[in-house]
């Protein structure tokens, strides 16, 4: 423990708080809680009676997902008629509805920064996300600081291990082989092939816990919706729910810290029919198609994934420490960014996760150009025929085939 903390701890030890609870208050509160539980139990019974009615009718033939959606609608309709206090049930049901979705789409909007050479700026980032489980996703970049990227569409089919990039402005299409596209699980350090990313949905789910404030009915895009809010420390989450479906149609996350830009998820659609054509790997008519093979051998791609994550963690460390990169990689574990176990696993060879490190770190030198400053590289004895993977201080990664060039870079 640091000196400052130790001193304060000693200081606190000398203070006596009047913090012994009053048993009368505890017992009275217990009675209040029992009354609240009993009321909650009575309120729950109504929708389940209706649920039993539904199950007896033709609707009982629906799939489990459809039946659950109906339950949400019933709960939503009953609860919407009640005053404040029932908002948390609608809120929780709205957030739960995302969890059951087989498809999910929304438009994400936030203020983003960009760098183009010496030029820096901000712009309003708007992108439309879609996914269809188990293995297809689509991203449309609706805005960009660079005109040629406006409208760019990326379609990923994790089953086929292929990615299609469409640029409507130039009418070009590029089909990429993703058979060696790897990711690191930052909780275990395990290397695995990239998979459908449902983390957006999962992030929105985590917002359902905590206190809930009900603002009642409001107008949103000409539609009457229910507005609910939750607060968690400095984060304020607002959810707008369609009273007919019980589904959220918009979610805003903002922070009381003014320097953080709010994020808006709008035009949310849950479990709607998303045509397979939206995820087709066939480019539209009139597009010039190029087919890009994965340029790196598979074993180098694996090292590349490890180097990218190590670079990311070093940048996070620098961000938390006034721009100072770690003096050694163990510092990122000490800082709690990852555990030692994860670090050791990521540093080890892909086919020997408990073995010795195969990647070396050199702290970036002060004043060096980040795009040409090697920060991480693959350890080698004799120069490999395929070259060596190197990670740079700006976060990019290269497979350097020319030994002279590599030695020049790390001089």
């Amino acid at each position, binding site marked *: 423990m640091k000196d400052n903390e130790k001193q304060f701890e000693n200081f606190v030890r000398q203070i006596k708080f009047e913090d012994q609870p009053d048993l009368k208050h505890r017992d009275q*509160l217990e009675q209040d809680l029992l009354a*609240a539980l009993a009321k909650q139990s009575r309120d729950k019974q109504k929708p389940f009676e209706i649920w039993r009615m539904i199950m007896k009718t033709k609707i009982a033939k629906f799939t489990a997902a459809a039946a659950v959606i109906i339950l949400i609608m019933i709960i939503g309709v009953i609860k919407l008629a009640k005053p404040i206090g029932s908002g948390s049930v609608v809120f929780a049901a709205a957030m739960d509805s995302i969890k059951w979705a087989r498809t999910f789409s929304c438009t994400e909007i936030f203020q983003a920064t960009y760098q183009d050479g010496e030029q820096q700026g901000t712009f309003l980032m708007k992108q439309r996300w879609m996914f269809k489980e188990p293995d297809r996703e689509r991203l449309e970049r609706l805005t960009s600081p660079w005109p040629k990227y406006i409208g760019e569409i990326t379609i990923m089919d994790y089953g086929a291990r292929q990615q299609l990039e469409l640029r409507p402005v130039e009418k070009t299409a590029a089909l990429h082989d993703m058979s060696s596209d790897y990711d690191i699980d930052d909780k275990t350090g395990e290397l695995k092939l990239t998979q459908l990313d449902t983390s957006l949905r999962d992030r929105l789910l985590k917002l359902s816990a905590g206190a809930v404030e009900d603002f009642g009915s409001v107008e949103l895009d000409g539609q009457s919706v229910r507005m609910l809010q939750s607060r968690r420390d400095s984060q304020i989450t607002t959810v707008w729910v369609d009273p007919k479906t019980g589904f959220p149609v918009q979610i805003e996350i903002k922070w009381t810290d003014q320097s953080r830009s709010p994020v808006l998820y709008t035009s949310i659609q849950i479990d709607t029919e998303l045509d397979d054509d939206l995820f087709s790997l066939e480019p539209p008519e009139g597009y010039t198609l190029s087919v890009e093979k994965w340029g790196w051998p598979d074993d180098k791609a694996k090292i590349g994934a490890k180097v990218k994550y190590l670079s990311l963690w070093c940048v996070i460390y620098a961000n938390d420490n006034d721009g100072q990169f770690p003096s050694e990689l163990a510092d990122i574990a000490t800082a*709690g960014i990852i555990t030692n176990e994860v670090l050791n696993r990521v540093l080890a060879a892909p086919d020997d996760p408990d073995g010795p490190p195969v990647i070396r770190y050199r702290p970036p030198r002060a004043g060096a150009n980040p795009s040409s400053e090697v920060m991480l590289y693959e350890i080698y004895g004799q120069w490999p025929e395929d070259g060596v993977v190197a990670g740079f201080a700006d976060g990019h990664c290269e497979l350097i085939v020319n030994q002279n060039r590599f030695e020049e870079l790390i001089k």
Partner: protein
Amino acid sequence: MPVDPKEQFHVDNDSQLIIQARSDAAAFVQLYRGHYEAVFRYCVHRLFERHAAEDVTSEVFLKVVESFHSFEGNGQQFRGWLYRIATNAVNDYLRKTARRSVLLKAACEQADNEVAGCRESSEKLAVLKQAMLTLKPKHQTIITLRFFENLKPTEIAEVLGSSPGTVRSQLARALAKLRKRLATENTEVTEKF
């Protein structure tokens, strides 16, 4: 780091109780009784006032009843969740300006009285109270969780939804600010900190 067997028992017991409490009011009451004191003490340490702490403790557990169905976790996570609700409730309470001014005014009066009476512990308490209430809620929360509730940085991180590294750096900043505030309140008391 080895876990205190008593603490581990408490956590394991809670995991069972949480499952039962979803459908059994008696189990919920047992869970409540197991955590009432900790929540009340946390509120006292944040608000420095018993009656305010009792009010906020009531609010916390009523919110637990309301949102219990949405909690999905084990005994360990329950404690973090409870502290999060308590932190939000205390911050909401303090955010209401009039209350904060009343508490601050009471703290000043108490400090004057205690300094005059020269009872060391109470004097330090009054000065600490005065200094703490002028800090931002986030800093008050971190200091209270670390030094009064004896939570580890990883546990505090879970309550606040941040990383242990961030908690450590925020704690250092909060302590530095508190030290400055204490120095302006009473140099005699703070010579020892």
